[in-house]
């Protein structure tokens, strides 16, 4: 089962929650899919097995077959192919690897080559697997890395620490997930961005519930919003300055019975809402 943790607004506490869920459930898997800024590993003890390059494909034009008809360029939604009567020029960095240009080329003049766009690091932590993706600086899209990460961990309980926002990478992190946890912040900006994440999840037909992090700050807008939209609130994490202080020191902060109990309960609520059934082999 894959459970994605998303938020809309950045900084609401996805990684905070994702790492604690992972630690609460020994033997589960955590994938850090915030590939532009993977930071979950900072809070974990990981024994690393290795790092591998992640590639994306881009079109290569066979000049002997190309008639410069321009069909590939007009097809491309990303302006990744320039065409004139004398030249057809693929722009590798703009290519989003959809494979469409080769399909539409009437001369079958297009093939694909690979280039590195980032890396994936893999290891073990807390009795389970931990992996992160990291997008190279300057690259436009982390989608390929996120897909590769998710495809390589399909068994058992998999937590996905998603990117902020609701753009392509966030969609790649929740697409086809079994359940999503929306980490909400009880502030006006938090609610406004959360509304966009709700729209994204509904469009993708991913069942979800909300966890209110930093509960106690801001206002009551988030509760009103969830009630109006009939959204399940799975639990709350009260605002606690000492937790923020611990994060700043790179610690997860599992250091009090109260906190351990809070996260154990939250984990239980989430797994129950997700319909997770432990399979004992």
């Amino acid at each position: 089962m894959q459970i994605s943790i998303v938020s809309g607004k950045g900084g609401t506490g996805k990684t905070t929650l994702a790492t604690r869920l992972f630690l609460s459930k020994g033997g589960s898997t955590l994938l850090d899919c915030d590939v532009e800024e993977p930071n979950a590993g900072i809070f974990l003890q990981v024994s690393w097995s290795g790092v591998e390059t992640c590639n994306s494909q881009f079109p290569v034009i066979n000049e002997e077959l190309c008639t410069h008809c321009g069909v590939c360029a007009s097809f491309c939604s990303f302006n990744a192919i320039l065409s004139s009567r004398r030249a057809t020029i693929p722009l590798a960095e703009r290519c989003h690897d959809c494979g469409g240009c080769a399909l539409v080329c009437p001369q079958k003049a297009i093939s694909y080559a690979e280039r590195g766009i980032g890396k994936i690091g893999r290891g073990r932590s807390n009795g389970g697997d931990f992996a992160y993706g990291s997008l190279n600086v300057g690259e436009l899209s982390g989608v390929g890395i996120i897909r590769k990460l998710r495809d390589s961990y399909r068994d058992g309980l998999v937590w996905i620490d998603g990117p902020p926002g609701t753009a392509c990478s966030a969609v790649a992190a929740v697409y086809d997930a079994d359940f999503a946890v929306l980490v909400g912040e009880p502030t006006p900006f938090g609610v406004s961005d959360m509304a966009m994440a709700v729209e994204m999840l509904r469009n993708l037909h991913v069942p979800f519930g909300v966890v209110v992090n930093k509960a106690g700050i801001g206002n009551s807008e988030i509760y009103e919003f969830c009630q109006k939209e009939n959204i399940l609130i799975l639990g709350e994490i009260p605002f606690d300055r000492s937790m923020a202080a611990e994060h700043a020191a790179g610690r997860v902060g599992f250091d009090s019975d109260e906190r351990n109990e809070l996260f154990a309960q939250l984990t239980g609520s989430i797994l129950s809402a997700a319909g997770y059934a432990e399979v004992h082999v």
Partner: protein
Amino acid sequence: MILAFCVRGNDESLPLDERFGRSDKFCLVNSDSGDYLKIIANPMKEATGSAGIGAVQLLSDQDVQGIIAPHLGPKAEDARKDLDMKLWDQGDCKTVDDAFDSWKNGDLKPVADSDRPKGLFRA
């Protein structure tokens, strides 16, 4: 050759736009005959990205060989070089007439291939 100028708004005086990739419209002029051929809307104005590259492609499709524009970003600059289009900096000119006259007099600064593109840095 066919020249393209970046135009803003609907005024008859054809005031120049300050942007290339997200320019409101382009005015195409036949530099040999002096005829103002047409004004085309720029769909790249609302593009989510690569507006400059899209604009270069748009002009190339219209057989434009020379662009008079404000600064081009690095991607648009590469694109126009790849498609063999010449570029002149519109400088302080205010309308298409100004810029075309300046171009005819050789007063517009050509952007050489070696010049580093500056762009508008308005992202």
